[in-house]
């Protein structure tokens, strides 16, 4: 697909959704996935965010 056609096909919304996802993944990737005995609903504090442990996976 030529660059000009690519730019027309990708909506502004989808660009923003990707932008939203990428740094958020980077934020959470540095933390280990929950061990089997850890409750996924347990609350954790990461960089000031109060999250559920399952969101760190």
């Amino acid at each position: 697909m030529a660059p000009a056609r690519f730019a027309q096909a990708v909506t502004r919304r989808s660009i923003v959704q990707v932008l939203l996802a990428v740094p958020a993944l980077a934020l959470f990737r540095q933390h280990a996935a929950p061990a089997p005995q850890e409750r996924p609903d347990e609350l954790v504090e990461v960089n000031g965010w109060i999250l559920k442990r399952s969101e760190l996976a």
Partner: protein
Amino acid sequence: MIFENFASFRSSGFTPTVVVIGSGPAGVTISRKLAAAGIPVAILEAGGAEYSDESQDFYRGKTVGDPYFDLDVTRLRYFGGCSNHWAGWCRLMDAVDFEPKARVPDTGWPIRRSDLEPYLDEVHGILDLVPFRDDVPISEDIRWVQLIKSPAVRFAEKYRSEIEQGANIALVLDSYATELQGDGSKVTGAAVWSAGKAQGTLAADYYVPCTGGLENSRLLLWSNERSNGGVVPHAEALGRYWMEHPQFEGGNAIMKNPDQFEMDAVSEAFFSPSAEAMERTGIMNFGVRFIQMPYSGAKRLLAELACVAPESAEWASESVGSRLRCAAQLYVSWEQAPRRENRIVLSSTERDSLGIPRLELHWRKNEIEHRTLLEGLRLFGKTLAEKDYGRVRIADWILNGDPYPADQELAGNHHMGGTRMGDDVKKSVVDRDQKVHGMANLYVGGSSVFTTSGQCNPTTTIVALSARLGDHLARRIGQSAMAR
């Protein structure tokens, strides 16, 4: 009746039973109650009908301790007092605010919220309020509370005509009560300065300073010094236990469903802790002001991106030609623990143009204030995550224990304490009826009588207390008249 100065008041021959000092919400409310009961009342207003720099200059002072507003800016010295610049936010203090707390010294009022509730209908009429709704618990820890943004009644505008036409009420402008004179059991007169000169003494049966949460202490401290303790015989607590509502931006939030909580007209909602959560975590009361940014569609996504990746969001924002902030901002204001060392004193070096010492405010936040801010945000964040309403991010400076930012709002311009209410004369100045301990005819109105501050804006509580004091005085004066 409204008089432009004290000389014209004198020549009218009006003889007041009660002298009220100050024409803000407390002074006007108490005076209207007395006048309605047929009791002649004079209100001495140090300023004029309008704002003037000359009048404001009397309010200059110095703050020692934490950064605070200039003392001649944080209050207003003319007809209507601080009602001329208040934002109109209304809520009566919580029932738990009046209760003693074993974990926090010197808490607990001698009255309860139930003592003020009978006056709520009246308060609604005075402040043009719609009825309050009950708090809604959203978890064991957090309540969704209502803070009514009223039309912000300007007392001078609303009540000028009633006062002008009242036969039992006289507002005397440009009349500065420089000191009260007393003999240790009663006040005998108020010295008045008006139109550039001393006007002698105004005598009445009762006196009620309502000059605000800073100036009440200054007037009584100076009067007591001049009369060798004859105005406040038990002065151990005079000027002390001064409080504010510290107020800072505490973090951000993303809501899963922005319609989860009904926002007010400017997309704001308010949350406070349950009494149990305060007790369990050892913190004071607080209010989280949740401000939803008014974005939708792509802008909303960008705003949410700004919460987690501000640099990427800034780049993306520029591409859509907008400067967007994180999806919701969280402001926190909270109750300050009453502490004896937070106090108003008379300056030993600075005096106003009449030679009266200016005030010096000694005010600091301490460890429990930071803990309330941090643990309060944690309680709120945990509730949002547990209930899956959204997610909260606490600001770095709070987590790191950094100094409070100097470029934010700092506090609410809420001046409380200094002549606090209590049963113990060593820790309070007025009793449960707002009468100065040991004095037969001296009462104090306004937020200087607050024993503790709660977390909400004080005007509603000030007006409720004033309606109660007006009733009390009217009853007492009526009983005295019948006994004679």
